[in-house]
């Protein structure tokens, strides 16, 4: 066996010159975190405002409840869109090759060659952002369409 392909998994140069980790993290987790925030803030506020103790109320505890919920939702939507934008630009940069994601370090031609993981992570970020922006919009629908403290029947 005479190996002619030089190795891409060399232990040298442990960190290939990767696309900035911060941007990757934002595009991967930005929208999900925004959605989780939207859910975890809206839920207790909406529940408590209409049913603080032993009996349900017919009107919310605070008059501004719809406004509070709307602000939370819009802020989270904006955060989701922002992370979606980051994901989108990262993806375009990687796709067009306008950002060199792997550099030959220290003159070793094969060291730190990217094996597609950067492309994979950016793609994952794009998909994750789109899905969770949809999720934020879904939650917004619930918040804007259902009147607070309304009776079900």
């Amino acid at each position, binding site marked *: 066996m005479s190996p002619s392909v030089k190795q891409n998994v060399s232990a040298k140069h442990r960190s290939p010159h990767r696309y900035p980790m911060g941007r990757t993290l934002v595009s991967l987790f930005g929208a999900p975190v925004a959605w989780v925030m939207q859910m975890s803030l809206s839920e207790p506020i909406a529940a408590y405002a209409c049913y603080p103790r032993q009996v349900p109320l017919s009107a919310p505890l605070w008059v501004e409840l719809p406004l509070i919920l709307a602000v939370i939702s819009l802020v989270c939507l904006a955060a989701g869109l922002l992370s979606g934008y980051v994901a989108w630009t990262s993806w375009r940069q990687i796709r067009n090759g306008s950002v060199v994601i792997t550099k030959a370090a220290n003159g070793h031609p094969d060291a730190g060659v990217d094996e597609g*993981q950067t492309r994979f992570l950016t793609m994952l970020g794009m998909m994750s952002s789109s899905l969770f922006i949809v999720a934020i919009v879904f939650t917004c629908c619930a918040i804007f369409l259902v009147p607070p403290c309304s009776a079900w029947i």
Partner: protein
Amino acid sequence: MASADITERPIDDHLARVPEIGCAPPGSDIEVQLARTWESEPGWRGWLSTVDHKAIGLRYIVTAFIFLIIGGLEALLIRIQLARPDQTLLTPEQYNQLFTMHGVTMIFLYALPILSGFSNYLWPLLLGSRDMAFPRLNAFSYWIFLFAGIFMYVSFPLGQAPNGGWFNYVPFSGPTFNTGPNIDVFALGMVLLGISTSVGSANFVVTLFRMRAPGMTINRVPILVWGTLTASVANLLVIPSVSLAFFLLWLDRQMGTHFFDVANGGKPLLWQHLFWIFGHPWVYAIVLPAMGIVSDALPTFCRRPLVGYTAMALATMAVMLIGFEVWIHHMFATGLPTVALSIFGAASMVISVPSSIAVFAWIATIWLGRPVFKTPFLFFAGFVMLFVIGGLSGVMTAAVPLDWQLNETYFIVAHLHYVLLGINVFPVVGGIYYWFPKFTGRMMDETLGKLSFWVMFIGFNVGFFPMHWAGLLGMPRRVYTYSSRMGWDGVNMITSIGSFVFAIGVLIFLVNVVVSLKRGALAGPNPWDAATLEWATSSPPPAYNFAVIPTVASRHPLWEDRLDEGRGRSNFKEGLLLAEGREAISTSPIDAKPLAILKMPDDTSTPFFLGLFISLLFVGLLLHWWLFTAATAIAGSLALIVWLWPRKALAQRAMPQGDNNG
């Protein structure tokens, strides 16, 4: 060959060295040495002390399957009772205990442990590693699971089994209405089982990020690994919730605290929140790895790679992430305010997006491939259909008004069985057909296999589809009998017949297993001509898994030549040898570059004893034997100290120059 080079080495080899690269064909010195290092001692001692992930994985699978059979027999008893109106085979109390134990057994003692079994067996093989990151913890996790299972069944023969349903709502399960030991057994058993699940999950998470073969970058990891990883991360985050809930309930029942005590300001809904914060992610934890089984095994029978790898990886993680924020859809009928419910209804519907992505990826894989209709393929294709049916009824119940109509009826029972049997049992049985040659070195019988599939599939649909109808007719779940004037006679009879047909299908499968173990055709390393790493080693694999750690060059290491992708080919002949004692390679989380040579622990019975002492501690708590509890706590601590004691052999201790024979 590198065996000659490694005799000369620098003196401080025990703290850092250049790992040897070479070949180790079967029968070579290195291969023999590896076998000697990694094989467990024969006899009961070796059996008790082994930390081999393959032995542990198989134990998990067998034990969980035994629990499946027990739970199935309970279900059959229930179905006999419900086959006709006004039956008196079971008393209401017996019926309560049976349906509770059926649920507990299936959800907690079968569904996740069997997947842990698959993952334990397969992960190091899929990832090209010698073992899991924490072999001893792995053994410990199995022993605790076994003991917790036994613990939850101790009161069953006494007629005092848990009787509050698997989600065990207060106040019915509180001290006022449920005075026997039934619920205490359940509560403490669940805390005990939680220990097993948590440490198992920690092991999976760390294994993924550290134990992959060089070159297996994050975008080349099999989907099963994504599934189990996601499930494990979720378990780490939510198991504390249910353990705490059961512990607080036990405090309420035995110590007189007031967490769920309405008369003193406690809230029954606190139980429901804590339980379902855990419960819903758990539902995904017991299906995502099974979906991973399909995503990895289905392509083998379609003769092409999975369509949409990245989308599938994302769908897996997204389902779980959304799954954290939907628990209130189990509480739609509790009187929470409208907006609060609608938010969770909306979130529950979002789950259909990633689920559909997964379904279309499987369908596209079949569509674009050249399907080979072997038994595993049938199970996986059947799974896709059942997943769609179960998913559809799931979207229906995500709508709050419809859920009000359907809540606590047989419609929900139908939905959850479609989801859990469809997405867990079918992939698992298909997975056993698929990996049986790897487990045992023998093929399973195809004729019996196909027969078992069709009997199971028909029995399942005959049994569970009419339940939708029973639910729409208004039949509530968990009633021990019904009057014939309700008009539920026909559907119930059909369901009962279907359930027995399904059971016959499982029986045929079990017969197949027994027959094939003895007489199955011998399987080579890769009988299905599959693509992933586990098929690169012999069947069954040697104790050390891979004599040479594979160097991976693509997502489909065994299909590279025919797919002709990538710049290089995976290397199975020449690579890291790591033969100085039990060793494994640790690689970086994303790029899978070698970072360190890990010293792996030898076989030890400490995990068994630690598991035993902890389990006895729970027996002490159950019986209020406080001195006994204290004694077992001390014994457990001593076992833990023995376990953690820094060892020279594992290079955990300072070693003066020249003293490296620890």
